[in-house]
């Protein structure tokens, strides 16, 4: 028993090593200690996907990236906190586990990066477009659509809306592999010239 726990400490130490290969093999071995080999693979693979369906039971293509953020990515995320001063940067760490569409449509479980998949979710889950901005309310979702290639490059959830003052609109979203942010509709690194609002009513 004592010998086994020593082995675990050694593997935990290896996980802190800069070499990704040794870190990954250590993670796999540690999982082997805890769960046995069959369950281990589904839990620890650095890149994976979840079984996720729309309401019409069609698969939602997704990518679950468990890799740790690189030091440079953390630095740039910190720079975003300093750059967007009027936004409220939530105390979440940079991660690639989920992205904005993963936050909006998959409850932070995984990443969705294909616009066609987002379009499929909107259709098959029964989202309705909102044309009158004055009727927006918290819980509605916003899509940022690129005017160059029609890519749905960002999405978020409306967390504050005022029918009298449309400038009070606040969005909760995740900025790529950086952290979650509550921001004004145009106060973000995405093209806000073409935005659309949707609501799920039932």
């Amino acid at each position, binding site marked *: 028993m004592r010998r086994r726990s020593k082995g675990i400490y050694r593997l935990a130490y290896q996980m802190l090593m800069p070499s*990704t290969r040794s870190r990954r093999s250590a993670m796999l071995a540690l999982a082997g200690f805890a769960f046995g080999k069959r369950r281990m693979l589904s839990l620890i693979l650095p890149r994976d996907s979840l079984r996720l369906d729309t309401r019409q039971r069609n698969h939602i293509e997704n990518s679950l990236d468990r890799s740790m953020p*690189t030091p440079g990515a953390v630095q*740039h*995320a910190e720079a975003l906190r300093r750059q967007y001063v009027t936004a409220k940067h939530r105390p979440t760490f*940079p991660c690639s586990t989920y992205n904005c569409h993963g936050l909006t449509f998959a409850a932070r479980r995984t990443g969705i990066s294909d616009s066609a998949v987002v379009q499929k979710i909107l259709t098959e889950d029964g989202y309705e477009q909102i044309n009158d901005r004055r009727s927006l309310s918290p819980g509605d979702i916003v899509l940022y659509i690129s005017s160059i290639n029609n890519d749905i490059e960002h999405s978020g959830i409306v967390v504050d809306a005022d029918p009298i003052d449309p400038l009070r609109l606040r969005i909760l979203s995740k900025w790529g592999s950086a952290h979650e942010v509550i921001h004004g509709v145009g106060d973000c690194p995405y093209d806000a010239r073409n935005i659309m609002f949707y609501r799920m009513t039932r």
Partner: protein
Amino acid sequence: MKSQHDYNYRNAEVAFVTANTPLFLLRKLRSDPVVRAMAFDLSEDEIIGALRSAVRRNPTDIRDAVLPYLYLVALSIKGKVVPLKQAVDIGAPHAEWFKYIGNYLLKSFTPSTTQVVSILMPKVLLPQPPTPSSSTTTVKMLKYPKGDSSNAL
């Protein structure tokens, strides 16, 4: 020849961090002056060589992660389909969106050429001070009515 260390990758790295979709990353890289400079400075073979060495290693920092995309977009800016196809075929096992972006670039490829055209500087004409000879003033002599000599010189 410029080496990859001579470029500032900050914009590309920020685009990579904030990218939710591969097409966002592509849009940002295409408009990045550094990627354009790279496409201008390096030959197709040099870019493909750099790409081969970039995709071989597992990225340990953000620069390593963004470099394969950068080279791919630089190649697409060069406007030749054969090297672009060659680059897509290399593949990048550590870059998740590499294949998607590569195929998108191939699908939306329009051949283009870059030509440097030298033109002569236009002659600059400085305004000259007015000289009596260039005066365009016309003098009209008016006759006074008969009998009125009050204003006569």
